[in-house]
């Protein structure tokens, strides 16, 4: 009796373990199955490198180059703004800030991480977009630039949290050694602690890239959402928002093309994931 139970439970646990693998297969399977037909019909080259997206025109064109470029530019911009701020904040919190500041800022940062992305979009739409318009004297503030800022703010929490954890994990004796050799606090920090925490910090950046590429709801509200080739102060549409904004109305080839966009997005994410894994595993190996 107890042997049977043992066997059954072992089966149950094995099943649970394999569920994650199953889910990944399921997601990949569905995205490929539903994403391939449109690519086949449109042609891979035309789909990926076409510069015009006019999905409901009489002679529809499905080129997603604008979305790909926008996603790439937007992410790069967000990283360029967000990473320095996040990195230096993390170093300050981990190495210089007094305990109570570290604790309270840490708490608020994790709060920032749990604010729904829609709220970022809402605040961006009501505050940032008009501000960008006034500041740069342009006709409308819903631009790639506004989206970059919103994304930069949204990736801050993950960059700060992961980097602080990595910096905290640097063995104290490294730093003590450097200080004993006469290095200043800052030299110790940037020449010893930061290099030692390198893999964690890089992981935080890659994680941030993943967040930025995958974010849909917030950027939809601040980027203007027109399928133009990207310009810093122009209205743009991201890969994610292309899916989100047309999905509910789409039918036929248009809908299939949206699934193909999701597939492209998925490939992007897989590449980022792969890099992330390489980075973190490489770091573990070095220790």
């Amino acid at each position: 009796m107890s042997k049977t139970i043992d066997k059954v439970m072992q089966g149950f646990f094995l099943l649970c373990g394999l569920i994650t693998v199953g889910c990944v297969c399921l997601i990949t399977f569905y995205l490929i199955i539903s994403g391939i037909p449109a690519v086949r019909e449109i042609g891979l080259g035309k789909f990926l490198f076409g510069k015009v997206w006019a999905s409901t025109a009489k002679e529809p064109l499905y080129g997603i180059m604008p979305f790909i470029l926008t996603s790439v530019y937007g992410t790069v911009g967000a990283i360029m703004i967000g990473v320095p701020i996040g990195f230096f904040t993390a170093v300050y919190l981990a190495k210089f800030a007094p305990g109570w500041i570290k604790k309270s800022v840490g708490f608020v940062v994790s709060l920032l991480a749990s604010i729904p992305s829609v709220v970022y979009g809402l605040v961006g739409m009501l505050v940032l977009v008009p501000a960008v318009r006034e500041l740069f004297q342009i006709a409308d503030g819903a631009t790639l630039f506004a989206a970059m800022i919103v994304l930069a703010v949204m990736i801050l929490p993950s960059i700060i949290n992961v980097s602080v954890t990595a910096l905290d994990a640097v063995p104290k004796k490294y730093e003590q050694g450097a200080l004993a050799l006469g290095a200043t606090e800052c030299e110790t920090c940037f020449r010893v602690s930061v290099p030692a925490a390198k893999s964690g910090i890089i992981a935080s950046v890659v994680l941030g890239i993943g967040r930025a590429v995958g974010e849909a709801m917030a950027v939809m509200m601040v980027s203007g959402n027109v399928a133009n080739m990207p310009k810093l102060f122009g209205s743009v549409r991201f890969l994610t928002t292309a899916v989100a904004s047309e999905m509910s109305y789409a039918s036929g080839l248009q809908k299939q093309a949206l699934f193909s966009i999701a597939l492209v997005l998925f490939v992007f994410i897989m590449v980022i994931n792969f890099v992330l894994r390489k980075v973190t595993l490489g770091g573990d190996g070095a220790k």
Partner: protein
Amino acid sequence: MMKRKILTAVMAVSMAVSCLTGCGSSGGAKGTVTTDGSTSMEKVIGALGESFMERNQGINFSYNPTGSGSGISAVANGTCDIGLSSRNLKEEEKADGLQETVLAIDGIAVIVNKSNEVADLSLEQIAGIYTGEITNWSELGGSDGEIVVIGRESGSGTRDGFESITGTEDACVLRQELTSTGDVIATVKSNENAIGYASLASVDDAVLTLSVGGVLPSSETVLDGSYAIQRPFVLVTKEGKELSAAAKAFFDYALSEEAKEVIEGAGVVPAN
């Protein structure tokens, strides 16, 4: 010991629930009406559903505002009872065995910021703005400022209606392509050079509604057709497929005399 027992109990219950929920997929339980579709119809369908449920205790009415396109395909797939579309059905959709019943007519209001001095535009002028031929308010008698043209995403019933009447299909040069009525109104409200369009039922005092060719949109001008930019609100059903008793009751109620008042209350004009 105690801890362990509680834990086992919790695990057991949660497994049981997961089994239950796993098997309990729904198949349109008795006494429910499911509708799915146009976001522009939210107010009128919401109001109709509510008054319908007041009259028919025990019937559950649900509305999923997903958009005309997905509402139509939901009926075709049989995932809802009645589809809601804010445009007429296309020929190929009718060929798929779908049937349309016009419930009401909605005016599409052309809106600008309150500080805008322009109060009237002709259809040609509107078309000129949306195709990018007219780019500055000064060309229309307003103060100098680049026109910020705001439209809806492709597939939106409002966009379909607007573009087919102004003759700007596939030719619109937009600055922002927003995905909902609320976004359009909010953006026009915050940008003094913006122009947009939205369902008359949703427009309020926060923005300025323009008259088109000298006619302001109102229920009278929409009904007699003198206000040009209008589109139908359509109930979509599948030909040859019997509606459930509850769905039939709602369908009949929506088209009845009683419902007229409710439809008007929601800001649109009953069709019959």
